[in-house]
């Protein structure tokens, strides 16, 4: 298992983390890495701990053991707002749009940071509008009135406003129509071309294999398998073993 370990310093490195919800032990020593600008897929059946892994990286759940490193620095005990400011953005599986805020205000939650000039803010907003024209149309509409697909776009655009080095993307295509799914796929490719790393949790295996460079397969709170995406096929026995498709 030395694929990827030739990189000198990964952007994000998760080292043997264990997490608990109350007494239930959910992550049993998860380790993984994401390099700069790399798209990495994290696959596994329902309830294996994919979302919990993302939350642990983000500082939303505290690992009882193990550490999370960002650019070589431990961030395990930082509050989520500090983690976000370092350059890790989070798009949760239920999107969690601020429903009573307008689309623009949702974007401004990520945009209004210290050290961002007005000119830069405008550039970033224009970019969001260019990537997701529907958000420009609905800029003054409350986030809660958008459709599921539009909310997903807004959640991704909102994360982009942080100018992150990595986006933790949790099931972005869940419940979306095929046309929306391909749009999400396109956005992943665009972000990758811009050099933004992505840790992608998905149920959509074909999309994940196409969009990612490397894949981790999780089962019951641990990473069981690790491979280059180009070496895996949807019909591979390991995929069948860990995902049951």
């Amino acid at each position, binding site marked *: 298992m030395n694929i990827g370990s030739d990189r000198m310093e990964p952007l994000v490195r998760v080292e043997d983390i264990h997490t608990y919800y109350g007494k239930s032990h959910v992550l049993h020593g998860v380790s993984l890495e994401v390099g700069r600008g790399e798209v990495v897929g994290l696959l596994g059946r329902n309830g294996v701990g994919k979302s919990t892994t993302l939350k642990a990286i*983000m500082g*939303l759940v505290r690992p009882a053991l193990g550490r999370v490193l960002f650019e070589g620095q431990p961030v395990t005990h930082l*509050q*989520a*707002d500090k*983690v*976000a*400011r370092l350059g890790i953005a*989070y798009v*949760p599986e239920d999107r*969690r749009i*601020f*429903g*009573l*805020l307008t689309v623009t*205000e949702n974007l*401004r*939650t*990520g945009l*209004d*940071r210290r050290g961002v000039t007005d000119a830069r803010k405008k550039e970033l907003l224009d970019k969001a509008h260019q990537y997701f024209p529907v958000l420009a149309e609905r800029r003054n509409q409350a986030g809660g009135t958008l459709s599921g697909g539009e909310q997903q776009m807004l959640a991704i655009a*909102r994360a982009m406003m*942080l100018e992150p080095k990595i986006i933790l993307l949790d099931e972005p295509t869940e419940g979306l129509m095929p046309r929306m799914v391909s749009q999400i796929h396109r956005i992943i490719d665009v972000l990758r071309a811009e050099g933004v790393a992505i840790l992608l949790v998905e149920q959509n295996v074909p999309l994940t294999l196409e969009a990612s460079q490397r894949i981790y397969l999780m089962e019951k709170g641990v990473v069981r398998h690790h491979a280059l995406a180009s070496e895996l096929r949807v019909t591979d026995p390991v995929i069948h073993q860990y995902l049951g498709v």
Partner: protein
Amino acid sequence: MLIEQILIQTVNGIVTGMILALVASGLTLIFGIMDVVNFAHGELFMLGAYVGVITLAATGDFWLAFVISTLTIAALGAALYWVTLRPLLGRDALTTILATFGISLVLQNYALWQFGPVARKIQEPVTGHFSFFYLDYPWYRLVIALASAAIIGGLWLFLKFGTFGIWIRATMQDRVMAQAMGIPVPMVLTAVFAIGSGMAAASGVLFGPLVGVNHAMGLDWVLKGFIVVVVGGMGSLGGSIAASILVSLLEAYASLIVSPAQSVIVSFVVLILTLLFRPTGLFVRTPR
């Protein structure tokens, strides 16, 4: 004659309603963002009035006293939040209710010990009257209504525009996601507690000249504040303001028929009817 009385009571109701709205805005802001029912709100109102008494005596300037009191109690509120409530965040709501109730008892007894049981007087900054039908109506009551409206309007603008307002509203809706977007949530919560406390103090100083300032003066107001916060819809700022004016107007009209002491019953009737028929609040759009 009756028309005149109704007009006068309308003005009275609106004036009282504006003060109540100021008390309730602070309460509802704190509830909306922290899910904390702040039982110490009335004591912050009362301490605000006392700080007003002291600074007025020292400086002789009512509006300076008003500003100093607001800032002092805002700082006190921030400190109280940081020391007593922040550690309880995320626990059972009952623990925060008990904590704020405890703070309220401590502050009330502190005031009794420090200032004694005799009511103090705040001299109003504007003393004249104008004639309003057959009555002399004090200018100061209009000043109170306008000052309250200005503060509430300022709060609204602050929340609506400006980055900090967006942070506050985002934190109100989803504290965890707000923090994941890089919003410094602990600082936002502290600031909101400070703002709510400062508003309580501001209303205490404004209202001080109409009644004596004593250690128990917060009780009536906070009770009514709770009523309008529930009637208006917990955590809805606009709802609390509308409910404050509605309840105060109804009480003012009721005092034409029954004695003023009995007219208080009206607010409880409105509360009970609201809880029975529209428990999410009168002025909250029911979710589709």
